């Protein structure tokens, strides 16, 4: 029972007017733009904060728990326009910071697998809801139908623009269609989710390359704004003698060929150079092309590979070996075909600015390894000149290029990144263009606060083991190279996994005005999550910094819950004799201004 009488009517009015939100006064839904609330949400909900698109992860996991797959899908789609796709191939920055994955808490929640589930299991009758603004009468050209371009196109269409996408390849999808193998991402799924975007009335012109078939200047004149989202397709070269030999492939080219149904020559022994997802994709594709001995060779150590554990595991399972601390120095051939590759050993060294560890080749360490083919998957750079010779500098944050009316988004701006960042970039770019063309900001991000009552889940759920993803066995993988390796969660598995989310969007707060400092909450805390604090510093950006703890009761200003450590078990709530701990649902959402 809340202590309503603690505040007189005048006090409450005063508080509302001056935007002082104490736990007791939050009884209705409030939208806040206070920096402190933004800061709190960022530390409290690490998964959402880490997601470039700021997906409301606890929200959709809760929906999955309630078997509302359609709603979960919508929550995802409102942040990331391709949920089914990302639910398979996302690089998962959220899982890396998931509170459940912290050292003593166990393993992170399988957030990505759950995202896939809501796409897989949403009912047939599910309808996509788009809230359309009135037409503006203006038109925008988008160059590139990859994730960044598609996201920008979608948002611009919603905002009321007529959008035309120019795509140089035969199919839309960009890296999704051409860079990622089918056994990780089925083609029909890509097309399905892309069509959901195109249904907004967006026109797609394939087989049209800007810079050759049509010029950027032309587009600049015909359209009110142009978005360059051509990604990074210029492969980084090995830059070593012998790279022109036959059977030396470059990662993206190789994947393109494989995804187009071709069979580039790999031979029996394949050496793959590279430490990212593409290198692993190439290696796994090489296995499916029949190679018996495939190795991935990296300059640093396994710790530095930019891939997640499930990819590492699948590669190992498929028999691919990984060699570390080596870099290629020369490719050797006979009759213009690859016969071997010379490597140098590397060592790890520290550089100070920026503080980082780099690999440095060791003198006189060359040795030769025989091989039938080499695949260099070193990533790509954006070929700025290919699109237009007028490009010079790029404002990488504001999406503005040096040319007025020409904007850019995705890998073209950031360099090789990941799909979710590209989507987030495309959306931001759409907002920037909207503000440029209309002259006002139509949406804003706020923190929505709502009174809540309980933890919504029992403590015993914290001890459930992470549900593994179902995969097909080796025979099936080799039988048809396009067979999707991961087959998705069942209804029950998804429900079980969804139980594991702590629901970090619930904020537990002790009201210092009502607390009697009995420390009953500290006694029952399962972790070091409730602290005696002397003060809370305020950062320059207006958010709260880390609590300054103290042992001295005389200096204690409050007993406070540390949101970064709180696992939302509800113990404190149940023992507080003063009932002064409140639960507030905090969500980062976008509303109209």
């Amino acid at each position, binding site marked *: 029972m809340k202590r309503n009488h603690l505040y007189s009517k005048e006090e409450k009015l005063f508080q509302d007017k001056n935007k002082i939100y104490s736990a007791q006064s939050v009884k209705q839904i409030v939208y806040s733009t206070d920096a402190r609330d933004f800061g709190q949400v960022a530390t409290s909900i690490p998964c959402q904060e880490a997601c470039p698109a700021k997906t409301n992860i606890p929200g959709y996991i809760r929906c999955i728990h309630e078997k509302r797959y359609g709603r979960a899908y919508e929550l995802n789609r409102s942040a990331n326009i391709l949920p089914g796709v990302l639910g398979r191939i996302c690089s998962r920055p959220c899982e890396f910071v998931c509170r459940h994955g912290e050292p*003593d808490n166990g393993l992170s929640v399988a957030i990505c697998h759950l995202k896939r589930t809501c796409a897989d299991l949403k009912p047939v009758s599910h309808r996509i809801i788009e809230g359309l603004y009135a037409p503006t009468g203006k038109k925008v050209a988008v160059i590139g139908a990859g994730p960044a371009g598609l996201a920008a196109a979608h948002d611009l269409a919603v905002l009321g623009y007529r959008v035309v996408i120019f795509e140089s390849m035969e199919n839309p999808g960009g890296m999704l269609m051409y860079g990622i193998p089918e056994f990780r991402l089925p083609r029909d799924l890509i097309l399905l989710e892309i069509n959901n975007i195109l249904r907004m009335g967006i026109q797609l012109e394939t087989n049209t390359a800007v810079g050759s078939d049509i010029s950027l200047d032309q587009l600049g004149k015909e359209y009110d704004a142009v978005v360059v989202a051509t990604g990074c397709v210029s492969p980084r070269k090995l830059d070593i003698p012998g790279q022109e030999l036959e059977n030396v492939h470059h990662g993206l080219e190789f994947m393109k060929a494989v995804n187009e149904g071709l069979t580039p020559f790999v031979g029996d022994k394949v050496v793959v150079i590279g430490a990212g997802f593409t290198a692993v994709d190439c290696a796994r594709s090489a296995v499916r092309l029949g190679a018996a001995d495939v190795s991935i060779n990296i300059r640093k150590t396994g710790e530095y590979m930019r891939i997640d554990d499930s990819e590492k595991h699948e590669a190992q399972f498929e028999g691919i070996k990984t060699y570390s601390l080596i870099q290629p120095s020369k490719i050797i051939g006979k009759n213009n075909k690859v016969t071997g590759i010379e490597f140098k050993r590397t060592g790890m060294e520290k550089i100070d600015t920026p503080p980082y560890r780099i690999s440095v080749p060791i003198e006189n360490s060359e040795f030769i390894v025989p091989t039938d083919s080499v695949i260099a998957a070193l990533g790509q750079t954006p070929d700025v000149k290919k699109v237009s010779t007028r490009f010079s500098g790029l404002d990488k944050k504001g999406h503005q290029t040096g040319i007025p009316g020409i904007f850019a988004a995705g890998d073209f701006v950031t360099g090789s990144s990941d799909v979710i960042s590209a989507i987030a970039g495309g959306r931001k770019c759409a907002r920037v263009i909207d503000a440029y063309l209309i002259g006002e900001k139509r949406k804003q991000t706020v923190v929505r606060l709502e009174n809540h009552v309980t933890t919504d889940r029992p*403590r015993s759920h914290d001890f459930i083991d992470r549900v593994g993803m179902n995969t097909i066995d080796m025979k099936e993988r080799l039988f048809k190279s396009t067979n999707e390796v991961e087959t998705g969660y069942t209804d029950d598995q998804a429900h079980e996994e969804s139980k594991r989310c702590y629901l970090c969007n619930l904020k537990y707060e002790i009201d210092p005005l009502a607390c009697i400092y009995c420390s009953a909450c500290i006694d029952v805390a*399962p972790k070091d999550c409730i602290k005696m604090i002397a003060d809370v510093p305020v950062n320059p950006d207006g958010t709260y910094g880390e609590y300054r703890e103290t042992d001295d009761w005389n200096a204690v200003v409050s007993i406070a819950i540390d949101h970064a450590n709180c696992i939302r078990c509800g*113990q404190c709530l149940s023992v507080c004799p003063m009932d002064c701990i409140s639960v507030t649902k905090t969500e980062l959402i976008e509303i109209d201004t």
Partner: protein
Amino acid sequence: MKDIDIVIEICGSAGEGTISAGEILSRFMSGQGFEIMSFDSYPAEIRGFGKCVAHTRISSNPIYSPGKLADVLISLNDNHAISQLPTLKESGILIYDSQPARPHEEDKSVAGRTKPGMISYGIPLNMLAHKAAGNARGMNMVALGALSALFHVDKDRFTDSIKARYGKKKQVVIDANVNSFLEGYDWAKENIKKSDPYSFEGVNLPEQKEKLIVNGNQLVAQAALDANLMFYAGYPITPATKIMEILSKELPKHGGTLLQTEDEIAAIGAVIGAGFGGKRAMTATSGPGFALMTEFTGLSVMAEVPAVIIDSQRAGPSTGMPTKTEQSDFNSAVMGGTGDCPRIVLAPADTKSCYEATVLALYFAEKYQTLVVVLLDFFLSNSIKNIDVPKKPAKKYRIANIAPKKEDLKDYKRYKITKSGISPRAVPGTPGGIFFSTGLEHNEYGRPDYSQAGHLKMTQKRYDKFNAVLVEAPAPEISAMGRGKVDIGVISWGSSAGAAREAVMAAQKEGIKAASFSSMMVSPFPEKALIKFADNCRKILIPELNFSGQFADFATCILKRPVEKLNFITGRPMASEDILQKMREM
């Protein structure tokens, strides 16, 4: 047929359920047919987080002492458990919490302090308690669950025992305890690789008789009620307070009266008053209180008024160490006070004898019209044992006053000199039975008489009466004499006797010819029996819990030969290991 004899210690902070865990464990084991003896220690503070240790010995054979070292130490609180490690055997087992909420600082973790040879089992007690009931209160039950899994204790029987123990509480409480137990059990079964030799599986036990799980204080109170106690006056003092507490509830139900006095002097005064009035009366105290009662002991003996004082000894002198055990009131009890003042002193050697001693005390006091002191100690008062339900005393023991016959009442002499020394005693209100009673030396009518002959006659009478008790005294406990001489005879009294008996049994296994002797009747002492025993021993060893060897000096006077003393004043009960070690050296 396999035997087991294991000492399990649970150590935690006050309020963590340490003592109740020990209680549940011993109750269960007793129910399974094992002998159990528990000796718990509590923190001195009334509130706060001091150290609690529940120490329980479980055996398939009779137990005579609590065991000095533990075989198993369960740590519910690292901080306190570290100070308990020294009493864990070198090859002992430590069970500790492997996942506390916060990591320990260096050397503040009990697991980091184990010596090589010890076996450590880390169990996430805190985490499992949370899993079972959402909070850490069930940690003690989780630990018991794990222990059961490790030592092959039947899980279902134990949970039945828990349910029975908490039977009257809310279902939610029962469930929390049972679930915590099961979480610990299951986790240990799945995750721990057993590397110790202890097991309760396959231990055969005799058919179960109904057992009582009690401590000395409870038995004293029960015995008093069964033996017609009608009046209790007392002043609370550790470790005797529990006796008064129990009687305050129960005595009125039996038609008796309890009076809490302003001090011990008033208490013994009231007891003697009640005794004079014809009702059985008793008080219980400890060393410092007994000292205050000294003067009145003289009155009881001189005026021949029945009175019983229970003295539960603690470390002294003066306030001493209230929660530590000692046997240093011997001199005071047997020889204290002024004048030639013979009084009966009984010293039970184990928990179950506390019942018999109290019944005898009330009986002797009434029959022999004198003071009886029963010497317990902190250990006997508080240690818990499972014993057969004691048989209620026969009528002869409950009503023992030798009343005057019709002829006696014609010219009633309250202090008539008789062959036994016991004068028929009229209860006030008996027609024709008016008499005088005084602390002054007196004649047969009770009137003051200072003549030389009179004082000698009366003193002799009182001593004759005193010596007559020996006929009815319980026989001394002598173990393992067999034929022929033994090398070492161990003579002990009170709670040390248990440890002595165990030491002798162990010594015999090692090939040392030994025997033990102890007598519950300490004053008058069965001197003949003692001399006969000592004659068969090449050497005599007298272990006791006091510094100077009070009983040893007493026995030396009787035996008129040198004895080897073994004295401990550690505050802890006598350990058979220590006696055995001394025997080896001798």
